[in-house]
C-alpha cells in the first residue's frame, strides 16, 4: 500500500534534521548535561524509523541500508572495545583515560578525556540497532 500524506511528509522533512541534531547533541554533551550514548542513539534511530515510515523503506534503504546498519552496529561495539583496550599500552586498567586525550577545562565541550568518543561509539551502535531491529521486524511492507 502506497500511503503518502502531505502533512506527514512535509512535517517529517521539516523535523528530521532537528531530531537528528538533538540526538547528536545528547550524544556529544554526555559529560555536561543529561543524556548520553544510549538516549541520543535512540533519538537518532527513531528519526530514521520516522523517515522509513513516511517515505517507505526504499527511501531509507537509499540513505541507510540494512547491510550498512548491521555493519555499523558491529563497528560501534568494536570501537568501544578498542578504545577500552588501548589503555593497556600505557599499563593502565581497562577503560582508563589515555594521556593523549587532554582533560581540558571543566564545563567545556572538549573536556573529560575520551568519554565523548566512547559515547559516540555507543550512540552509533544503538541508532543502527534500532534501525536494524525495525527493518528485520518487517519494515519492508509496513508503510
Amino acid at each position, binding site marked *: 500500500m502506497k500511503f503518502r500524506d502531505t502533512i506527514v511528509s512535509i512535517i517529517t522533512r521539516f523535523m528530521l534534521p532537528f531530531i537528528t541534531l538533538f540526538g547528536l547533541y*545528547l550524544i556529544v554533551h554526555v559529560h555536561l548535561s*543529561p*543524556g*548520553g550514548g*544510549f*538516549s541520543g542513539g*535512540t*533519538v537518532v*534511530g*527513531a528519526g530514521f*524509523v520516522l523517515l522509513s*515510515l513516511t517515505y517507505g523503506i526504499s527511501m531509507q534503504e537509499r540513505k541507510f541500508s540494512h547491510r550498512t546498519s548491521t555493519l555499523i552496529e558491529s563497528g560501534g561495539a568494536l570501537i568501544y572495545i578498542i578504545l577500552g583496550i588501548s589503555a593497556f599500552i600505557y599499563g593502565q586498567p581497562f577503560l582508563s583515560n589515555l594521556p593523549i586525550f587532554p582533560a581540558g577545562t571543566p564545563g567545556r565541550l572538549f573536556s573529560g578525556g575520551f568519554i565523548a568518543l566512547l559515547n559516540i561509539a555507543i550512540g552509533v551502535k544503538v541508532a543502527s540497532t*534500532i534501525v536494524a*531491529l*525495525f527493518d528485520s*521486524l*518487517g*519494515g519492508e511492507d*509496513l508503510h
Partner: protein
Amino acid sequence: MINLFHFVLILTLIVVVISVAKIKDLLSAVILFAVYNLIMSLLWQQMRAPDVAITEAALGAGVTTVLLVAAISKTGRLEK
C-alpha cells in the same frame, strides 16, 4: 512532599496501567502503553532524574510503540 501535580500524574498512571492489563483490543493497549511511558517520563523528571526521563520518552513512548504496532500489523489485532 506530594503536590497536586504529582497526585494527578500518579492517579492517571494507575488508571492507565490497569486499563492496559484489562483491555482486549491490542492496538488500544499499545497506545495506552505509550501514554503510560509518557506519564512515567514526566514522573522521572519530577523525581530529578532527567537522564532516565529522556531515555523513557525516546525509547518507551517512541520506539517501543512503533515496534509493537509493527508486530500487531504482522499478527492479529484482537486478543484470542
